[in-house]
């Protein structure tokens, strides 16, 4: 079943369809949440909540309106909601996690060694992180990303190229370092 059919089945209460959609979109959903929050614990909680909401709202999905982008939009909205709540709860002088480099939110040294490129990604701005993840991990086109983020397609392509240049530099540095 493709994602469109899965959403239809989920709307009818099919748990197997929900599990299949979860297996297909688990990594992109987590990547979007991590790109926005720069925090692995928050990204984990958001991933869980996204699929609970997909189950609850699948019947409102309109066929033909890009199912992957629909699910990822839920992830984006939830991640920004979580950050807004965090910002209200944190003291004014303490920055929200997405405003920092994010590296310290990835885990211990052993984990960091396996997430070198992810750490480099989190050094980018939050918009650039989303563009890279939505294109390279979720497989959305630049036009779909532009539509989802409310940006001109040219801006998305330009920011994507800048982000890639930064990540390539990091990869080359790690090979030579």
């Amino acid at each position, binding site marked *: 079943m493709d994602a469109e059919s899965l959403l239809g089945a989920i709307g009818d*209460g099919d*748990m197997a369809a*929900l*599990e299949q959609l*979860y*297996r297909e979109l*688990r*990594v992109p959903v*987590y*990547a979007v949440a*991590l790109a926005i929050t720069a925090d*692995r614990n928050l*990204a*984990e909680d958001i*991933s*869980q909540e996204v*699929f*609970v909401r997909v*189950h*609850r709202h699948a019947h409102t999905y309109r066929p033909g309106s890009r199912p992957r982008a629909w699910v990822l939009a839920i992830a984006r909205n939830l991640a920004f909601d979580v950050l807004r709540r965090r910002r209200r709860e944190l003291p004014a002088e303490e920055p929200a996690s997405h405003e920092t480099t994010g590296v310290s939110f*990835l885990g211990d040294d052993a*984990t960091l060694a*396996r*997430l*070198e*490129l*992810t750490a480099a*990604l989190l050094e980018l701005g939050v918009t650039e992180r989303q563009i*890279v*993840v939505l294109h*390279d*991990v979720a497989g959305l086109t630049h036009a779909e990303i532009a539509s989802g983020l409310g940006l001109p397609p040219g801006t998305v392509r330009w920011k994507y190229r800048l982000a*890639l240049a930064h*990540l*390539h530099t990091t*990869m080359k540095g790690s090979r030579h370092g």
Partner: protein
Amino acid sequence: MADSDELGDRLRTELDFAAPDVWPRIRGRVQARRVAFELLAALEGPPSAWGRLYWEFHFRLRDELSGRAGVP
């Protein structure tokens, strides 16, 4: 282009490692919600405190959330 593909592959591999499997928790939450709706649908109103239905509701939800539903 080859560099971009390599970068995308590596990012997907890293994130696949980083992303935890939260399916058991999702399933538990979805099933607990279904149980709650079924029980509420079987009643004319909320169960009275400490009655038999209150405890049935309590234990079924606890079992669903802890992943023990169906275990004798």
